[in-house]
């Protein structure tokens, strides 16, 4: 189902085939999807259905075997690795289930990193503000391993949003957290999404969480199945 707003993500017949010892495996089998700016979209489906691969393609971290991928006006199929990195640095914030913080850097340095890459002279000031926004203003000099799981994910969230990206991609951001902490993170994520008016694409196994998004895309066996479910945003 086409997006109502101008699309920030436009995928057409995207296929992904990977080599494996047992022979080539079709991970994505012709995905076509448009997501409008400011939308919140949940991608749901069983394990192995291709959700994460789809998210990686949207992030430019995986290249589609065929099909067209246009993100924030950039044709990803035509961009080189470094150009993709630059687009990510400016336009896309990614939140992982396993946080993927740089273990050798403090919370502040982790958050400042994408801003530094983008050459922002205020990197550390913004990073400090962001950490304050996620409630970690007092933990700026801690290393990831000195933080709890929830705190680590809040740092990851601050890092993803620090450059004010148009697009937030989140891969099961609460998968490694307990229920309470997970809820806090989700509140934070949706709050930031709303306040920044950024597009949010969220992979989740949690039906309740999916319901909070305006739209749900169901995947199975590398395909979108059953069409999109559009709901009134909560």
């Amino acid at each position, binding site marked *: 189902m086409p997006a109502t707003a101008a699309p920030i993500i436009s995928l057409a017949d995207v296929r992904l085939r990977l080599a494996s010892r047992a022979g080539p495996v079709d991970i994505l089998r012709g995905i076509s999807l448009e997501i409008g700016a400011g939308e919140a979209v949940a991608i749901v489906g069983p394990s192995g259905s291709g959700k*994460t*691969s789809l998210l*990686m393609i949207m*992030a430019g*971290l*995986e290249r589609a075997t065929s099909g067209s991928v246009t993100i924030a006006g950039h044709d990803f199929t035509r961009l080189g*690795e*470094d150009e993709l*990195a*630059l*687009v*990510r*640095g*400016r336009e896309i914030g*990614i939140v*992982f*289930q*396993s946080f*993927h*913080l*740089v*273990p*050798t*850097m403090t919370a502040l*340095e982790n958050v400042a*990193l*994408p801003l*530094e*890459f*983008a050459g922002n*002279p205020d990197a*550390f000031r913004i990073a400090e503000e962001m950490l304050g926004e996620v409630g970690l203003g007092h933990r700026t000099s801690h*290393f*990831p*391993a*000195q933080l709890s799981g929830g705190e680590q994910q809040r740092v990851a969230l601050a*890092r993803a949003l620090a*450059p004010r990206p148009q697009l937030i991609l989140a*891969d*099961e951001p609460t*998968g*490694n957290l307990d229920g309470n902490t997970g809820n806090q993170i989700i509140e934070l994520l949706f709050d930031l999404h709303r306040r920044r008016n950024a597009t949010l694409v969220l992979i989740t196994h949690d039906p309740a969480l999916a319901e909070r998004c305006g739209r749900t895309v169901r995947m199975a066996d590398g395909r979108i199945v059953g069409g999109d479910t559009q709901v009134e945003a909560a």
Partner: protein
Amino acid sequence: MTSAGTTIAPQARSARSAGPQVLRLALRELRSGFSGFHVFIACVALGVMVITAVGVLTDSLRRGFEQQGELLLGGDLVLSRAHRPAEPKELAWLNAQGRMAAMATMRTMARRIDGQDQALAELKGVDTAYPLVGAVQMQGGAGFAEAIHKQGGAVVAPILLERLGLSVGDSIALGSTTVPITGVVEDEPDSITDNLTYGPRVFVSLETMQRTGLVQLGSLVRWRYALKIADGRASEEQLVRFRDQLASALPDSGFTVRDRRNPSPRVTRSLDRLRQFLTLLGLTALLVGGVGVANAVATFIDRRRRVIATFKSLGATSGMIFGVFLTQVLLIAAIGVAIGLVLGYLVPVIANAIYGDALPIRATVTISPWSIASAAAYGFLVALVFTLWPLGRAELVRAGVLFRDEVAPEPVRPRPRVIALTVATVAALVLFAVLSSEVRWIAIYFCVGLVAVFALFAGLGVLVTYVARRLPRSTVPEVALAIGNLGAPGGLTRSIVLSLGAGLSLLVAVALTDSSMVRELTTHLPETSPTYFVLDIAKTDADEFRQLVNRVAPGSEIRDAPMLRGRIVELGGRPVDQIKPAPEAQWVLTGDRGLTYSEGVPEGSRVVAGEWWPADYDGDPLVSFEAELAGHLGVGLGDTVTVNVLGRNITARIASLREVKWESLAINFVMVFSPNALQAAPHSLLATITLPPDADLARDAELARAISNTFPSATAIRVKDAIDAFNDVFGKVMTAVRVAGSITLLAGALVLAGALATAQRRRIKQAVIFKTLGAIRKRILLSHFVEYAVLAAVTAAVAAVLGTISAWIVVTQVMEIDFTFSSTAVLGALALALVLVMGFGGFGTWQVLRAPAVPYLRSD
């Protein structure tokens, strides 16, 4: 089911089964394979290989010596002494003991009969019984006995013919006679027992030698008598018995006796020294590799934390966990040791197959149990030293913090017993190195030096990390990332600095020692040394000799001193065979020493204790001894020294101790006697001639020609030739040292590669995260480059300073020559460090940049 009588008390059962259980668990744990242990195994194997190879090499040469001792010596025993042939009574006794061959050797000038050229030669006169064992091989298969005895000619080494431009059939002048060249010698069976350093061999019969007029009372002739006292090989018992009988039958003969068990103590001693030195270098390589061992174990324990936690949750004690992983690590060390032993054995086998002909003797590749045991002991001890600490930390870590130790390091110290065990292992290693060394103080200094070097580079690693953490964050992201990595907990800094530091320091020290020595030999020494040493100038020719030199080379400086040869037979009233001197002074007691007498303190000497005798002293014989050697020999002022000169024992009291500047190459002696002690003995003079600085080569050659033509019995040794010969030997030694030093660097490179490999997964993940956050590849590449460049530069700079200080100490304090700094050597070290770190690091970075992002980002 157990009855009460057979029930084993729980404690006893646990004690009885703990050992096998630990082994069983360790073996089960090993099922996970050896990945991550390749560098561990390689590091242990490399060090053990070097030590084993050194052991096999020396074992083989020693075995070759023992097996071929009879051939090398030319008999079961050889008796020798300077100046004086055996008297009829002595000859009769010797002849009665078995078959005997007589020889006389001396240095002399072999001259063209037209007087146009001359060369220093080692003349050997032999009787018809020579050689008792083996045969002299001649070119063209001519008969040796025929050539020298029947034809009365000289059989010479090919190099002499080349130097003098002569061929077989021509004649050479020896002393006051001419001798036809009747053959060319290809192989001399007992050559190794002679010190053929100065010139090529010239064989003549003893009769011909007498005819030359060179054999005079007091001239420097060494008389040798080879004996076969048994039909086959003389047994050890027979050899010992012979020595006893000789001592009682000819008590004051002054003969030096060698037997087939150790045909050349000089060579044997050199071998022992070489073994010690190269073993210590092997130990250095092993210790540098130890860093790789420690890294591997730390990583291994890191990977095994879940297993440890599981063990603990299932009731395993800390001691049990320590035991299991220690056993496992020792089993892996055993693989490294085994590989090292095999490779160490193969290296000499291959070297012998390729270069065997270049050795002075045919080496039978063999290995003694001691060599195997010591190489293995070093391997296990070093492995233990470097594994106990990380193993001790693992047993203490609570399961709850297992997953956070790397970045949130709670400073976990191993238990006191593990610390004590580590200290005990280090002590055992040092003790083993020291006790198995021939010269223990060298081993002690070496160990202290090594500990200092390790401490320094470990400290440097900590310092770099500390500084990097405290530097204000750079605004340039590449630099900020690089500095961040340098200061990161669990980063590469300490491993790289520690692994490369020792090897680079060693190479800088070797290079600077080499450059200082080369400068000394090629520039300084020739400038300050005499041009010629002239031996065997008859006392009566002294004035004529001076006149000749002043006529041919006006402005030359001539110095002379009386010269005799004698053997020390007693020191401080004790026979020398009962004295165990410090190894560095042993040479003074073995064989003949040059002796002199003088009214005044000789030039280049300074009296540091006691008093010099008055000019007209006529009391009991006095002697002045070189101070340092006197200390090593345990004698001092007032002690007596008995020397055997021309068969007479002369006892003198030590009246003074002198400090001698040996490096000046002036005439210097260990012992200088009061004139009344030796004046009456027949002797010749030793002189040095220093040509004026403007003398050209033609004048130099003319003087040599004039001396040998006018004084046929005198031997002129050109100092520059001797220095060149020494330079050549020194060059070879330095090459060997450089190769050994390179092995340390190779070990360092292994550790470096291992550390980089261990960090690789983390680095790839880091780079992937950077990419997701918008970093382009150039940025990651640059940050790695900056990190590696800083590490290489800091390590090389400190290594350069440390190497320079070490070389300065060796050069100025041990060799006592001027230190020459060579910027090439230091820049070379820097370049090498950059190449190694950049090479390995660059390869790693290339892989980091190629790595796909997705596998690292997916959740486990």
